[in-house]
Structures are given as C-alpha cells and as structure tokens.
C-alpha cells in the first residue's frame, strides 16, 4: 500500500515535469533565443520585499542589474526603480506543437528589467527559460529513445525466443556484437558516421533514433529469456493443440509475461538515454545552437572562467540529478512490484 502511494507520487512529479517542459513557453518568461548582449553572465535576480526607503511591499519586486563599468560579468543592483513581479503577463507570441497559439506567460517583469531566475549566459539569455526549453529536448529524447529501444528489443527478442533456431542464433549473435562495445563508444561510433552539422529539428529525431537503435540488445536478451520460458508452458502447448496461430499465442499468453519487464526496463533506460543525449550535446555532437539542451547548456562550463565564477550555470546539472533521483526511485519500486506479481 505504502509503495503504491509512493509510486503514484513519483509518477505524478515526473509527469508534471514533462508537461511543464512541454508547455515551456508558458512557464518561461523569455524565448530561448532571446538575447540581451548587455547582460552577459548576470547572476540570478534577487527578490525584495523592502525597498531602499524602508517601505514594505506585499508583492515582491526586483531591481535591474546594472553592469559595473569597465568590467565583464560583474553587476550591481540599480535601486532607483523597483519592478514588481507580475503574474500572467503578455510576452512574445509563441506556438506549442504548431497548433496552440498564445502569448501568455506565467510570470515576468516589465522592461528594461529582466527576471533571471537562474542567471544568464554569455549572450544574456535567461537560463531558466532555456532550462525549460532544453528539458523538452533532453527529457523527451531520453523517453522516446527508450521507447525505440524497447520496441526493437521486444520485436527481436520475441522472435528469437519464440522461433528459436536460426532466427535465434542470428539475433543473439548480433546482440552480442552490439554489447561487445562499451556503450558510449558504440554511440559515438554510430554518431560519427552521420552528418556532423544537422538542423536542430532533424537533430532531435536523429538523436532519438541513434540512441534508441544502439541500445536494443540488452532488452532483447531479457525479453528473449522471458519468451523462451513462457513458450514452454503447458497452457501455451494446450492452446497450440487447439490450433492457435503463433500470433495468437504471442499476443495472449507469451508477451503478457514481458510487460512487467518492459516497464522496469523503460524506467531504467530513460535516464540512461537522457544522459546519452546530454553527453552528445555537451560535446557538440547532439543538438546545436541556438536550440538549448541540458547538454549544450553545460558545455560552457568547460571554460574555466565560467566554471569558477558563474556557479548558476550548473543549474541544468541539478535538474538532471533531480530527474535521475525520481527515475531511480521509480525503478526500485517497479522492480519490487514486478517481483511480487511473479510470485
């Protein structure tokens, strides 16, 4: 019972996170490409309730960051004008999935102040907004790549386990080949043989396909095992005795054994694949500028001056850790549940 509640809680948080990044334009005060060259590496905006005259405001407000003269990346608050935080403001127009058109944003401040919840990067782009937009790429490429891997693994593993013989040998030897390489090397090798510079829209699809297709082998082996043991069950034999077709047997009796496995594998693979996308983008082999992904957002940390001075650039990393914690908890709970069902 307790497990069940925990499971739904974690699922709820994960699903909300995915929905929020899907609706990134609404939750983000700025577009991911909107630059503010005058404010490179601005620290996160501070919220105040008491102004310079000592008056208390119920609505929090912010000051504009004023670049310190003759410096780069150093700022002081311009206390001359207070900009209150507003909710449900109108910002630049956007489209979600090319159908949903709007310009409402959850929160914002009036120009010329900028609200940087997580600071800005060297082009003055709001990191918080980019985090949300980047989440679209990172979170969903992981999830979709996991779906691709599992679909491939299910098909091939079921075929190998059910029909045995030559089919089994071919599939298993191929799986062995794919597993013979360290997975990151395999991923890079496959990526190496694709065009280097891909348009961002194509890049997402390419990433999903490459990461997904590279990882089919382990799920396939697991599913093959399940199918092999399920195939020999007497009730399968009995159904065959009634004249059931192979397809019917698979659908009705054999594959349902694998559903629990598929769920746990999905929870296991998704975070790995998110990390794969992040790694590729980090090294410039994934999604490129100006489209953000948590990977290419972290790439600027490779420059030592960014690493030591501008700590807020680590925010995508924190988001990654949070997502992984959720997924690992989910995994653990699912594994326990599946074990129970199997008595």
């Amino acid at each position, binding site marked *: 019972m307790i497990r069940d509640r925990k499971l739904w809680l974690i699922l709820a948080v994960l699903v909300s996170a995915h929905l929020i990044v899907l609706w990134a334009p609404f939750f983000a005060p700025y577009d991911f490409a909107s630059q503010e060259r005058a404010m490179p590496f601005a620290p996160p905006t501070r919220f105040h309730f008491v102004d310079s005259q000592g008056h208390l405001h119920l609505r929090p407000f912010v000051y504009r960051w004023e670049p310190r003269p003759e410096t780069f990346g150093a700022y002081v608050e311009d206390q001359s004008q207070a900009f209150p935080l507003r909710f449900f403001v109108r910002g630049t127009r956007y489209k979600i999935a090319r159908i949903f058109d709007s310009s409402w944003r959850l929160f914002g401040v009036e120009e010329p102040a900028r609200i940087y919840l997580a600071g800005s990067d060297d082009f003055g782009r709001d990191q918080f907004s980019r985090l949300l937009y980047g989440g679209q790429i990172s979170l969903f490429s992981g999830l979709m790549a996991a779906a691709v891997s599992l679909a491939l693994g299910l098909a091939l593993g079921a075929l190998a386990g059910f029909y045995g013989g030559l089919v089994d*040998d071919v599939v298993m030897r191929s799986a062995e080949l794919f597993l013979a390489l360290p997975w990151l090397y395999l991923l890079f090798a496959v990526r190496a043989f694709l065009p280097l510079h891909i348009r961002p829209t194509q890049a997402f699809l390419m990433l999903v396909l490459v990461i997904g297709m590279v990882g089919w082998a382990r799920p396939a082996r697991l599913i093959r095992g399940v199918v092999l043991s399920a195939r020999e*069950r*007497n*009730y399968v*034999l*009995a*159904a*065959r*005795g*009634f*004249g*059931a077709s192979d397809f*019917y047997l698979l659908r009705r*009796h054999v594959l*349902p054994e694998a559903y629990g496995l598929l769920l746990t594998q999905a929870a296991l693979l998704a975070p790995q694949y998110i990390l794969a996308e992040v790694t590729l983008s980090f090294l410039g082999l994934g999604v490129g500028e100006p489209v953000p992904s948590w990977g290419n957002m972290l790439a600027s940390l490779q420059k030592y001056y960014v690493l030591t001075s501008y700590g807020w650039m680590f925010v995508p990393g924190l988001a990654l850790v949070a997502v992984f914690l959720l997924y690992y908890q989910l995994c653990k709970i699912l594994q326990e549940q599946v074990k129970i069902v199997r008595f």
Partner: protein
Amino acid sequence: MKSRRESAVSNMAADDKLQTGEPLVRVRGLCKRYAQGRWLTRKKFLVEALSHVGLSIRARSTLAVVGESGAGKSTLARCLARLEEPSSGEIWYEGKSLLDLSSQERFWVRRQIQLVFQDPTTALDPRLSAVEIVAEPLVIHGEGSKRDRRQRALTAMEQTGLSPQWGDKSPLEFSGGQRQRLALARALVLGPKFLILDEALAGLDLSMQAQMVNLLLGIQASQALTYLCISHDLALVSNIADEVAVMRQGRIIEWSRTSELFNNPRHPYTQQLIASVPRLESTA
C-alpha cells in the same frame, strides 16, 4: 475377472453411430528421433523416443498405454495430438492420414483430437478466469459471439462437475482436482471425438481419482468419446481401459485386452510390472 470397464460396456446402449469394427485411430511404424548436440555437430547423439510404434483404437473404446518414465508415452501422446512431428510412420484418423493435411484440414482435426495434461496447474493460464480458459478453444476457432462462448463454456464446466458460479474465479482459487476438471471442460468444449489423457489423473489423490474416473466414464458414454489413457499406474488403468498396451524404451512390447493382460501377461516386463502393483481391484 471382468474389469469394471468391461461391465460398463456391456451395459451400454447398443445404438452406435460409429462402426465398432473400424478403428478410429490407427498408428503404424511411428518413429520419433531427437538429435542432440550443437548445430554444427548435429549428428552427435540420436535419441529414439519412439521406435516403430503400431496401435489401433476402436471408436468409443479406451486404450491405455502404460510404462515407466522415459518409455515414450508422452511423446506418443504429443505425436497423436499433433503437437510434435514424428520422424517417420503413419497416423490415421477416421481413415484419413493425419500427416499430410492441408492447413485447413489440420485446423479441423484440432477440434476432434484433444489432449489433457498431467499437471493442471501449469496447463491453465493464471492470468485468465476459469470461463475464459474453458472458452479459449472457441475463441481460437472463432465460434459464436462472446455470450454464446461464455454459455458453452459454462455448460462444459457443469458437465465436468464444476459450478458455473465459479466461472469468473482465477484458476489459482481451485483445488487440484477442480483444476483438472477445468482442463477437462476445456478439452470438451469443442466437442471432440478423441481425447488423450496424458497422466491426467497422476497428480490427484485416490478419492479424487475415483471421482474423475467416474466422471470420465460418464462423459465417454454420453458424448461417445474415444480415450487414449497414458499412465504408469496399472491399478488405475484396470478400472478404465478396454485394452492396454505396454511401452518400453519407445517400443510397444505387449498389447491386449485388459483382463487378458492382467490375467495372462506374456512379456516378462509386463509380468514384472503387474507383480509390482500392490493390489488389483476386483469386482464382484
């Protein structure tokens, strides 16, 4: 000494549609070989599970095949039920060869010949409810609407002594004997003519066995069934079979009517088997 079976037969009504002279099932020279070893070195070991087996079973009669484990009884059952392909030989059912049939004919034959397994627990899919299990053959053969199938399944359950109220229960909620009845109901739902019972009574205790024997005899009479009963239990066989065949190492070494076999065993192996049975049941 008349077996209980023979008494039942002589009490049966004489209007038979099927010619009791013509065998329903005939087997000739059946061989089954398994190759063991890796596929590059295939011809390493050859196991002869069946070696030139020949049988015939008359309609509405019961043939028992006995022997110890590994004698090839189950292999024979599976070949007859067309779950396995024999390496060579002939199988005839109602005058037609079972081994070269079109896929449509094969599908039709599946309705006629059914197999009941030894362990009912593994033979029933625990994910389905009882009525779904019994109705499955109907689903596979695409018969009737959902409601018709459910009705027929419940009827079959009633025939085997299970209450139709238990239709929606999981098979795990049934006892061993009840599960075997469920398996039997499933085997009967398509109205087969030939039933193969592969050690179907082995996992049950003696009182359950007696009940099942009575059930089987009753159904055989009411539905004009032919049985092939595979067992290692001679005492059980004496109650249910018209004829008995003894198998050893893939061969049939003796085959005669039940009373004759028990009174006059010819082969030394048969004599050994009979001698090892603690007590044979005698009818008044």
